[in-house]
């Protein structure tokens, strides 16, 4: 272990951590928007749920290194190549959790809302989404944590999309364990911190119900 190296590279470490977080956040946000749309379709038109989950399940089984590698010939070493796999991997997690969230809303509550004359959009925003929140946040946790892990792998695309994975790849190239360590440890800490923050957020958004993970 070379502590001097770490001290000398603290500012770069900070920048890489920010870059890592940014790449992950963009992927999770885009994945959430797409998955939310898909989930609404799946909930309203039930027969589409099976195919949607099946397709996102197939995408999920493709090894991450393989997915990054497969995109390079098509989209080059671009931000798109770094983000597309991140987005695709979140779909299965999000769709499952969001649909489970909507399913967890008691039918009586929906009927009551209808009887009170709520239009569809209002019912969605005021009744369904708030009640589905605990499960949606559980999905957000899972997706965030796994995406932060995946960003380390996008380091194979080079230093612009490496985040903390950049240190891991560089350290390997120079046979310098300290640098590998400097990339690996913060990425684990980042994942754990984000997970804790989201747990707190979940408790704040839905204080009436303790978070429960879906099946």
């Amino acid at each position, binding site marked *: 272990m070379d502590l001097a190296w770490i001290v000398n590279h603290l500012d770069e470490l900070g920048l890489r951590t920010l870059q890592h977080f940014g790449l992950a956040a963009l992927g999770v946000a885009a994945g959430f928007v797409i998955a939310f749309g898909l989930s609404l379709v799946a909930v309203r038109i039930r027969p589409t749920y099976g195919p949607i989950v099946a397709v996102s399940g197939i995408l999920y089984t493709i090894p991450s*290194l393989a997915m990054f*590698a497969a995109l390079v010939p098509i989209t080059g070493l671009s931000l798109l190549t770094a983000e597309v796999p991140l987005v695709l991997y979140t779909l299965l997690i999000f769709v499952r959790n969001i649909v489970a969230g909507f399913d967890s809303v008691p039918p009586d509550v929906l009927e009551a809302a209808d009887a009170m004359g709520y239009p569809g959009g209002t019912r969605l925003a005021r009744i369904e989404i708030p009640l589905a929140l605990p499960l949606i946040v559980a999905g957000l946790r899972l997706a965030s944590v796994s995406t932060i892990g995946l960003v380390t792998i996008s380091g194979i695309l080079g230093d612009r999309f490496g985040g903390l994975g950049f240190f*891991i790849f560089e350290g390997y190239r120079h046979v310098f364990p300290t640098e590998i360590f400097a990339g690996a440890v913060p990425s684990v800490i980042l994942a754990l911190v984000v997970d804790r923050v989201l747990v707190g957020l979940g408790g704040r958004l839905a204080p009436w119900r303790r978070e429960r993970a879906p099946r």
Partner: protein
Amino acid sequence: MSLIDATVAWFGDPAHWSGAAGIPNRLVEHLGLSAVALAIAIIIALPAGLAIGHTRRGAAFAANLANIGRAIPSLAVIGIAIPFTVLIDPQLGFKIYPTIVAMVILAIPPILVNAEAGIVGVDRDLVESARAMGMRERQVLRRIEIPIALPVILAGIRSGASQIVATMTLGAIFGSGGLGRFLVEGIAQRDIGMTAGGVVLVAGLALVVEAAFALLQRATGTPAAQGRPPTVTRPSLGPARLTP
């Protein structure tokens, strides 16, 4: 389409089918490393999961462990393991051991959590009657709980195995063998055929492993044979339900 042409051409070249860097050897390496990692993970996680399920002690510990295990990126585990494993062996400790450590850590949560959930899900009345018949705790576990929980336990091993086979590719970044080498070298040399060929091989192997475990589950006469495997991937769920 040039991508498909390049892939077919790569597969068609006889030079890619022999030697240390050939497809058969890489496939054997990949399977060998995966099997070693899976075996170690089972040795650690299965007894622990069975004990926790049987005694109902340490369930919260297991749930937390599984949560943390999921939060840790495999590539990071490899990185963290390197400084320690090089102390054991400078060569293998840099190239192979870290990957195996990461794969073991990857597979422990699903195996442990499923073993525990499977045992917890066994009908209490059955366990009580076994005890009333004079079975010892060990016999209860071996003759009643494990056979009934088998489908859930196997589902955990299955999901551990398929995660290992897919994620083992990362080891190639650090110079371990296996199919990941085609991805890493393909990207480095901008060889589209090799990259896509590697993708096909890895995805194909993952599917074959899934199918093999599905057959194994079916052979043990389990509910998994009827479509969806009873995989329990989240520890905070209630006990898994079983149809007798």
